[in-house]
């Protein structure tokens, strides 16, 4: 089996690619994720489904050919993962952030991301304290089925042992999995009230007037508070790609999903899975709780996550300065959905960003992963824990957003 382990500093480059791609995509802006939670803009679902459809067969195809990956499907402890996912989804709907998108938003110069960083560290610290109590141990040990993926069990760093036959069987399963995800990416309309996904829009080369209007509205909130750009700039093409002639730019927006998925496959070959929330536990341990049992296990097992998080921030900073011009210089920009419901007060936004991020990280650490470790890397490996976490997050996110953002 061919294996390789890259030096730690390479994590900065991996984080950089993912941070830059996701910033262009609009994930650094909390409004994007609040609209996802309100089920008004499903870009994230479409792109993640497409990214996984491309990268899961690549991962298991190469594995079947003898390439070794640093597999790390998270353990399936049903209760902890489920409850963690529910708490994570609620926090996501309130704050508009994933653990990784907080670093991206900082790179984009978003003020409310600063509040989210502190909420996130405190949320991680809360789990560190809870972990060594009987409740914490019950959550991670009850109904724990270990690290399992659809069709196999993770038995060693580089080995997933198939339940039947050879690794080629898991590759076959990944093809079926990819077809299912591709159908979601193709048929799920991007906008509520629209008819086409972004993929279908590009293939059919048309969109309804309503969809064009929604694209314009999206471009407006993405560029709100950003920097000026000229008519012929790359920023204009990226932000207003729906209105430009350039098909390359249009396809680039769709292919971001593939870039992110394949970068995670590369990362798994080089060193580890992509994860962003472990850094918060590591920071909480370093700052306040160095002697706690959970902190000790994080210190011993930490990979290049702190470096890849810094890389994520730098990638978003580069993209927002060089490409999209969405750098907001920490101005007071409140997500529109939030300001419609709660007004423009910095204090309420602080509470939403800080409190939401607190819940999100508490849930993420309870479940042993976040949107990166479970939804992106976990679902890419077809980890059953990742699929459970994804379902719990979406259920809680949709319900929370329905009540939090409903019109008075």
């Amino acid at each position, binding site marked *: 089996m061919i294996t390789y382990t890259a030096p730690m500093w390479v994590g*900065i480059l991996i984080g950089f690619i993912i941070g830059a791609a996701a910033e262009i995509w609009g994930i650094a802006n909390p409004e994007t994720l609040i609209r996802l939670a309100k089920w008004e803009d499903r870009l994230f679902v479409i792109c993640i489904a497409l990214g996984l459809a491309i990268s899961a067969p690549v991962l298991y195809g190469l594995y079947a050919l003898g390439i070794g990956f640093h597999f790390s499907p998270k353990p399936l402890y049903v209760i902890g993962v489920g409850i963690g996912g529910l708490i994570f989804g609620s926090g996501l709907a309130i704050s508009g952030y994933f653990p990784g998108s907080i670093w991206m938003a900082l790179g984009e*110069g978003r003020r409310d991301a600063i509040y989210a960083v502190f909420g996130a560290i405190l949320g991680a610290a809360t789990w560190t304290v809870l972990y060594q109590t009987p409740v914490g141990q019950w959550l991670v040990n009850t109904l724990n089925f270990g690290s399992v993926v659809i069709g196999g069990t993770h038995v060693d760093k580089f080995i997933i042992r198939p339940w039947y036959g050879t690794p080629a069987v898991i590759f076959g399963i990944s093809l079926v999995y990819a077809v299912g995800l591709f159908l979601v990416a193709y048929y799920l309309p991007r906008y509520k009230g629209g008819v086409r996904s972004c993929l279908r829009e590009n293939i059919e080369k048309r969109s309804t007037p309503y969809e064009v209007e929604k694209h314009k509205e999206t471009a407006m909130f993405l560029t709100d508070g950003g*920097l000026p750009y000229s008519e012929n700039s790359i920023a*204009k093409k990226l932000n*207003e790609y729906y209105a430009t002639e350039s098909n390359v730019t249009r396809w680039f927006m769709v292919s971001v999903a593939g870039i992110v998925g394949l970068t995670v496959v590369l990362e798994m070959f080089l060193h580890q899975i992509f994860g962003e929330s472990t850094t918060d536990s590591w920071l909480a341990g370093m700052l306040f709780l160095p002697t706690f049992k959970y902190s000790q296990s994080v210190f011993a097992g930490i990979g290049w996550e702190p470096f890849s998080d810094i890389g994520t921030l730098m990638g978003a900073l580069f993209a927002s300065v060089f490409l999209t011009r969405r750098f907001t210089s920490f101005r007071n920009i409140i997500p529109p959905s939030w300001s419609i419901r709660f007004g423009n007060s910095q204090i309420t936004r602080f509470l939403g960003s800080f409190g939401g991020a607190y819940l999100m990280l508490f849930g993420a650490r309870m479940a042993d992963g976040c949107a990166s470790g479970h939804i992106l890397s976990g679902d890419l490996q077809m980890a059953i824990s990742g699929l459970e976490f994804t379902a719990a997050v979406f259920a809680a996110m949709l319900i929370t957003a329905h009540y939090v953002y409903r019109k008075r």
Partner: protein
Amino acid sequence: MMSRTNLDSLDKAYKAILIVGFILMLVVAAAVTNDTATKPLTGSQVAAVGFIAVFLLFLGALVYNQFPDSILGKPKKESQKSEVKEKS
């Protein structure tokens, strides 16, 4: 408010610093970790790299605060004026 030419120069200067800063970050990361692949990262190693990121971000905020607050690439006041014109 600074002139357009000065803002462009400031923008270019910051971009150059950003590129140099990022390369420096990679060099520092490789140096402080001794190019290791498996040893867990320590607080001081991460801080050495993190400080560069914080500095670049802080500098970016200072520089781009000089630029007009914009939407869709146009300064907000200008954008509001053109919207009014379009409506009338």
